[in-house]
């Protein structure tokens, strides 16, 4: 407890460096939970993009219980015209999906994605982290120019860790913006994920000698199935 006070003072000093001084923690009492809720409400309402838990914690006075206040706020907005949604580790207010018809005029023009881009996106989402060779193995064709850029540009995918196999290929994973766009709390909530996994359709199952068995795959050989990375992503 003593350490907490100590840390609080330091943390605040850093934050105070850029911004109109927030109430200095330690000197002022932690605001009541209802007030913390109001603060989070204001911050999330003000932003069009999801705000991460870490950002909220940084912006609220020291000692606030962000998780608890968020849970309260979420309950408060349940069933309203605007609801509190979660995308990965970030939170945002979004209009309730059942009111889509009313908000027709707010629709933003969205770039049409090619069939290749849509399939590639789904493969990355369901198989992440996934290498380009694996995407090609699943689709049976080369990843065409522009497909990956388009998804990177939309910020729906990003680079994951390199695969620890010969050649150490780069991998792709989906982002928080992807989750936000498709209204998913986490990659575990992808529709049908459990069924696909149980049916073995998310295993990487290379077969040497087959027409689709790219070189990279035969190299991957050993760690066929779910990589540790993938476990970390879906099972936490």
């Amino acid at each position, binding site marked *: 407890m003593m350490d907490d006070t100590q840390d609080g003072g330091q943390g605040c000093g850093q934050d105070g460096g*850029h911004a109109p001084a927030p109430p200095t923690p330690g000197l002022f009492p932690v605001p009541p939970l209802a007030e913390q809720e109001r603060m989070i409400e204001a*911050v999330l*309402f*003000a*932003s*069009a*993009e999801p*705000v991460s838990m870490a*950002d909220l914690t940084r912006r609220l006075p020291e000692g606030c219980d962000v998780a608890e206040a968020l849970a309260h706020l979420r309950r408060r907005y349940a069933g309203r015209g605007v609801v509190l949604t979660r995308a990965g580790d970030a939170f*945002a*207010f*979004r*209009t*309730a*999906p059942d009111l*889509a018809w009313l*908000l027709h005029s*707010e*629709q*933003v023009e*969205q770039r049409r994605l090619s*069939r*290749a881009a*849509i*399939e590639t*996106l*789904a*493969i990355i*989402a*369901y198989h992440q982290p996934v290498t380009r060779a694996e995407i090609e*193995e*699943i*689709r*049976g*064709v080369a990843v065409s120019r522009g497909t990956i*850029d388009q998804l*990177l*540009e939309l*910020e729906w995918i*990003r*680079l994951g860790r390199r695969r620890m196999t010969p050649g150490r290929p780069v991998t792709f994973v989906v982002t928080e913006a992807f989750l*936000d*766009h*498709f*209204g*998913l709390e986490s990659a575990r909530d*992808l*529709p*049908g994920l459990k069924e*696909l996994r149980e*049916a*073995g*359709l998310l295993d990487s*199952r290379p*077969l*040497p*000698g*087959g*027409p*689709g068995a790219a070189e990279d795959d035969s190299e991957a050989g050993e760690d066929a199935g779910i990589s540790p990375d993938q476990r970390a992503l879906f099972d936490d």
Partner: protein
Amino acid sequence: MGGAAEGDIALRLADEALILDIDGFEGPLDLLLTLARRQKVDLRRIPILQLAEQYLRFIEAARGLRIELAADYLVMAAWLAYLKSRLLLPPDPAEEGPSAEDLAAHLAFQLERLEAMREAAARLMARDRLGREVHARGAPEAATIARSRQYTASLLELMQAYARLRTRDDFRPYAFDRPDVLPLEAALERLRMRLVDSGDWLELAQFLPPGWRAPGKRRRSAVASTFAASLELAKQGQVDLTQAESFGPLRLRRAAGRGRSHDG
């Protein structure tokens, strides 16, 4: 017998209909999946032998129609032909590697997985999406949340900047090499155009493009290409060639009775 023959014809027609769509297919696996769907059976129980035969028949029909197929379709055809023969023959105990059944099962798995990913993609796109069914705050009050966003740059920009820098180096030696070669096509094109303009005898050197006439590598390449092009046109009867003496300058002109018609 007659019924079977009719069935064959129906299948052949169906294949031909598919062939017309060939540009719409995303590779051999996509085509195989379409063929498999036509069988209207559970993909897990798809008779691979039958599917292989269908695919091979398809490729043959495409050849019959003189349709050019990308190499990967032919690679798949060769592999399926191999698979088919192995499925039909008794297993060779000396043979190493996966059995024919394993190979067939893997192909069935690939088809099922591709189908599953397509369905998953469709389900994903059918969700309530941001900016369509679900909306963010229309008038956000803070510019952004992270302070570091003062200056923005995307990962894509970063990687492209790097690629631009690095390929500039790769590219240089290549750029120096290539322009010193006048492609035969370019020489032919130029020769044809020039010959329409004039019916007089001209020296070969007069057909060299500007910038290729100074002595050096470029001139040598241009002379070689233009010479080859003139032989080609002479073969086609479009030009007449003449050379007054050995190693003397080569002259050419439009073949008599050609080209003038353009001028009326």
